[in-house]
């Protein structure tokens, strides 16, 4: 029993990470209709900038480091948007965009290796420590991740519904042509969205440091599973992302209780395929 | 090319009491149409009258809620779209559906794909046979293009042709299968007067070749000029049918239309604008 509960808890914890990933690329999907296959690398970049550059090299105090990282990542996002998404979304097929982002991913990975060196590392007393309830254990980092994930969704919903920019984003998400005719600067809007997405990526990057440590491949697995989470929750629908993330996290953990542990990774992909075939709109999504 | 059939007053397409409900909303309500062989039958009505829905029901794009569709006496209700097409029904689309990255000739040849029976594997190795087949298809397409007066444009990329041309080319594509019946979904929408005149000419020529047309149209001058028989829908219900003369003098029709004439014009403007976007 204790085991099952523990599995549930860690499943939920992982689930919220997947959820954040799903949110971050759903934003871009909504505004550009493209999938950002380089998102795991962007997460990694965020982590490196924060940890390697600001904390280790400059040993800055953490709040300042966080703020600066956000700014840098925002800029990076805008650059990526104007450099890749905007040119590529006009192409006659989305293949170019997908490939573009994949290439970007590889470039970023190499860039990280060349700039920061290949040595994996971590930073001390950053969100470390655990909370115990009886025999059950949950790391502080996971708790924070849950809170942040929920906050991010709420914040985004408010932003989307009550700010001018946010509303513009929703228009763009629904119909770029019309939005353009309404005088919304679509390209600029996409820049903003991507910037926000990049910032969320950096948030993820920072939050997973105590759990995953920092290495060039730290985000590889959550990258793909994040896609599954998004689809299962309902593609393009933010609250759905959380549901999907939790679903995957919990199911894959509980599945291991019966299956051999090596099949854990297969679970999420099988779920992905099943959902795409049976219910492409996911749990909460509008009909796809 | 389809050869002229001797004109008998047998029904070609019979639609009996078909109804289509989109959850709650009734788009087509218990409509029956009996279209005679070798005629041009127009279906008119104000916006939202459910005309395009009718076409989609006949071609099996949408499933019927209730009712029956017969073609040449055969029941085609609930058939898959491509099977219905194979029965001898062609179709054009309200917002054109062409293949922009292919040439006009190729566009039309796609329409004749089913005329070329050779399978893929055989096609790989039977070079002579497949070449002959291809040539036959090509000649036919060229004949069709000549018929609709676009032969000289055959090697242009579709996306570089003007909207009107693209629209008329759809008729050509439909003709490749020698269907008895071609459904025209607002063929004149978005065409300028000269193009419209051309369209009328094309349709009429084809009619003389023995094709029958079931036409949805807003544009009254086109409808009145060429259709033998008219069915009028309003809000999914059939309010009148008869020859152009009868319909014109039918006051219910006039009421339905007077209320919405301006809408008509807006509608036409819309489709112009749309043509500029696409």
């Amino acid at each position, binding site marked *: 029993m204790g085991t099952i509960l523990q599995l549930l808890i860690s499943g939920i914890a992982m689930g919220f990470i997947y959820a954040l990933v799903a949110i971050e690329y759903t934003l871009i999907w909504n505004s550009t209709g493209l999938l950002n296959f380089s998102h795991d690398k962007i997460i990694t970049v965020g982590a490196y900038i924060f940890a390697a550059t600001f904390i280790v090299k400059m040993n800055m105090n953490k709040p300042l480091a966080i703020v600066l990282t956000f700014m840098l990542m925002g800029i990076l996002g805008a650059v990526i948007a104007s450099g890749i998404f905007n040119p590529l979304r006009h192409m006659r097929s989305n293949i170019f965009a997908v490939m573009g982002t994949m290439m970007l991913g590889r470039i970023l990975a*190499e860039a990280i290796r060349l700039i920061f060196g290949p040595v994996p590392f971590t930073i001390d007393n950053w969100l470390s420590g655990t909370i115990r309830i009886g025999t059950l254990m949950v790391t502080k980092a996971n708790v924070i991740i849950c809170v942040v994930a929920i906050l991010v969704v709420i914040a985004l919903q408010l932003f989307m519904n009550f700010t001018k920019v946010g509303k513009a984003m929703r228009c763009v998400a629904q119909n770029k042509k019309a939005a353009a005719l309404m005088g919304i600067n679509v390209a600029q809007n996409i820049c903003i969205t991507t910037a926000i997405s990049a910032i969320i990526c950096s948030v993820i990057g920072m939050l997973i440091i105590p759990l995953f440590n920092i290495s060039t491949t730290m985000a590889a697995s959550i990258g793909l599973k994040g896609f599954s989470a998004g689809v299962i929750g309902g593609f393009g629908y933010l609250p759905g992302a959380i549901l999907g993330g939790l679903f995957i996290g919990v199911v894959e953990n509980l599945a291991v209780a019966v299956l051999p542990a090596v099949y854990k990774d297969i679970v999420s992909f099988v779920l992905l395929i099943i959902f795409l075939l049976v219910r492409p709109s996911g749990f909460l999504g509008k009909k796809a | 090319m389809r050869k002229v059939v001797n004109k008998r007053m047998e029904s070609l397409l019979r639609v009996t009491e078909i109804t289509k409900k989109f959850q709650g909303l009734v788009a087509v309500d218990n409509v029956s149409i009996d279209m005679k062989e070798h005629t041009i039958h127009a279906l008119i009505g104000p916006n939202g009258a459910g005309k395009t829905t009718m076409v989609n029901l006949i071609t099996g794009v949408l499933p019927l809620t209730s009712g029956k569709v017969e073609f040449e006496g055969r029941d085609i209700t609930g058939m898959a779209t491509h099977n219905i097409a194979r029965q001898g029904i062609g179709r054009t689309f309200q917002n054109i559906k062409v293949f922009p*990255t292919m040439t006009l000739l190729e566009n039309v040849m796609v329409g004749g794909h089913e005329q070329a029976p050779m399978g*893929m594997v055989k096609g790989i190795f039977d070079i002579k046979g497949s070449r002959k087949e291809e040539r036959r298809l090509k000649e036919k397409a060229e004949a069709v293009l000549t018929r609709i007066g676009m032969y000289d444009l055959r090697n242009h990329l579709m996306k570089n042709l003007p909207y009107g041309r693209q629209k008329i080319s759809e008729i050509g594509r439909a003709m490749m299968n020698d269907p008895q019946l071609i459904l025209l979904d607002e063929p004149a929408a978005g065409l300028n007067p000269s193009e419209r005149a051309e369209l009328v000419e094309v349709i009429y020529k084809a009619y003389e070749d023995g094709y029958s047309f079931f036409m949805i149209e807003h544009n009254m001058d086109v409808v009145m000029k060429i259709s033998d028989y008219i069915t009028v829908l309003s809000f999914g219900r059939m309010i009148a049918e008869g020859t152009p003369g009868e319909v014109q003098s039918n006051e219910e029709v006039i009421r339905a239309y007077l209320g919405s004439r301006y809408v008509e014009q807006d509608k036409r403007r819309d489709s112009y604008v749309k043509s500029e976007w696409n």
Partner: protein
Amino acid sequence: MKIKLKPLHYAIATLALAAFLPFFITNDYYMMLLNRVLINIIVVLGLNFITGLTGQMNLGTAGIFALGAYSSALFTKYTNLSPWLGLVTAIIMGVLIGRGLGYPSLRVKGVYLSLTTIGFGEVVRLLIANTPKLTGGTQGVRNIRPYHIGSYQFQTQKEMYYLFLVFTAIAFFCAWRIACSKWGRIFKSLRDNAEAVEMSGVDIASCKIKAFTVASIFGTVAGAMYAHYMGYINPSTFNLDLSTNYVIMLMVGGLGSVTGTIFGSAVVTILPEMLRFLGNYYQIVFCSIILLGAIFFPDGWVSAVTVLFKKVYQRAAKGHYAEGGE
């Protein structure tokens, strides 16, 4: 289109050229690269039907490739029969995969399909890795027999090269015939506008499945060739990066262009090796080149020149040309 213009004797000329190539190459390393190019050409020729012509994103090529390699390798290993029969099993496997992947493609479109195919690829890889009883798991399959005719074994790179040249020529011929036939036309029209095709009486479902089947047969055959060529296969080779590379080859060659596949495979296989002199930076430079290619020459690098010419011409003629198209 591009494809139609190519007369047959060009192909023959190229073939002759390819046949003479080994006489100028002494180094096994370059021979090996050529062999890899030949194998990749076959895969990309197949992928071209799904992604190039029918315009459906397939990121599961590695899965197809892997299943081909493993079905042939394991068949020859367990039955101890000739690799040629392994090739047959690979083809059968290809047909099965084609059906298996084709049906989803009827339900899910665009990016959903690419996610499905990614899932497919990953599942295949993980399953192979985690069923050691059958596949040898992550230890891989060793000493896979090379192809042979009678007692004559294809051992050296050169011998392999000529064998694979024949394979590739046949594959190219088939792909070319299909792409230039009414089938190629239908595939293209499916990409542009499925409803219209359906209304012409074409059963689009069976067409799409045909496309996938052809593609996966090409993929599995190439996989089998790879297995018997390398002599050792291991699941970790068949990852998402591999699938990506194949799509890149297609892109570089130009989507939908059959002849382009040769160019694409050659570039993507050889360019990184040529860039090795950059030492630490060769990967990043290679990726940057590809990325820029995707942005500037969406119709493939071959077309780059023509596109450029067009642009200039239109500037001169003040003609309005929709770049990229819809």
